[in-house]
């Protein structure tokens, strides 16, 4: 069993359902009893470095899968015929891949992803809770301030405020201890 990686550029100007149909077709080609897809990453529409079939953008997809040479032959034949695929590149990743190990790896990655998502969800929930708390607090203080302001407004009307200027004490600190440091000269210099 070998492990391959194929990047292909799908036409960015075709309708979504057409593109999905193309992906499904390619996935169907790969998946058989022995072969399976390791990952199918849709990078989305990106600018291409040069024009391909007069198009400046392309919908990039990265597919990683297991299989043998005949599968690659078939896949590339289909992609060559299908004009929804602008370009493709297949790279051999592992000459002698162990399907079991890959499945394990996939399961582990899946678990990690889930754990991360869970963590993120928890963090989000915590952040939201904090935010709600802060908002509630802010509201409470705003209400309190408004009440206070109203009170003070009444008070200001009643009495005049006398402002007492705070006395500024000049603390002139003298620098104590005249240290005359002689720079240490390097004898090696």
């Amino acid at each position, binding site marked *: 069993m070998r492990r391959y990686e194929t990047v292909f*550029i799908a036409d960015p100007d075709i309708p979504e359902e057409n593109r999905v149909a193309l992906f499904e077709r390619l996935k169907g080609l790969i998946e058989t009893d022995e072969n399976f897809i390791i990952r199918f990453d849709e990078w989305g529409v990106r600018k*291409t*470095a*040069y024009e391909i079939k007069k198009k400046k953008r392309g919908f990039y997809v990265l597919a990683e899968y297991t299989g043998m040479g005949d599968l690659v032959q078939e896949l590339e034949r289909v992609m060559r015929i299908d004009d929804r695929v602008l370009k493709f*590149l297949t790279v051999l990743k592992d000459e002698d891949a162990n399907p079991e190990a890959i499945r394990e790896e996939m399961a582990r990655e899946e678990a990690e992803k889930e754990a991360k998502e869970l963590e993120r969800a928890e963090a989000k929930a915590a952040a939201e809770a904090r935010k709600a708390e802060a908002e509630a607090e802010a509201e409470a203080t705003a209400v309190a301030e408004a009440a206070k302001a109203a009170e003070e407004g009444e008070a200001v009307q009643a009495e005049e405020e006398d402002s007492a200027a705070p006395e500024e004490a000049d603390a002139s600190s003298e620098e104590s201890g005249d240290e005359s440091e002689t720079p240490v000269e390097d004898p090696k210099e």
Partner: protein
Amino acid sequence: MAIRPVNRRKRVFHRRKVCRFCADKSMNIDYKETRTLRYFTTDRGKIVPRRISGTCAKHQRALTTAIKRARHIALMPFVGNVPD
């Protein structure tokens, strides 16, 4: 007396010529990572020679294939930024 060492330092100009991929093992060469590859190409899209970049033979080989693959799938240009 104090002038001499300064002068000497000025005259010797050392260019760091260590393979970046050997120095930093976490860096890997992949045709999909164009950000790293771009560093080893000129503005025009040419591959920078070993004598300039200081890359070791092994990594330069890997780099060359990676850049060529990236070009094939239009992640990097064959000819880029041509000055008029």
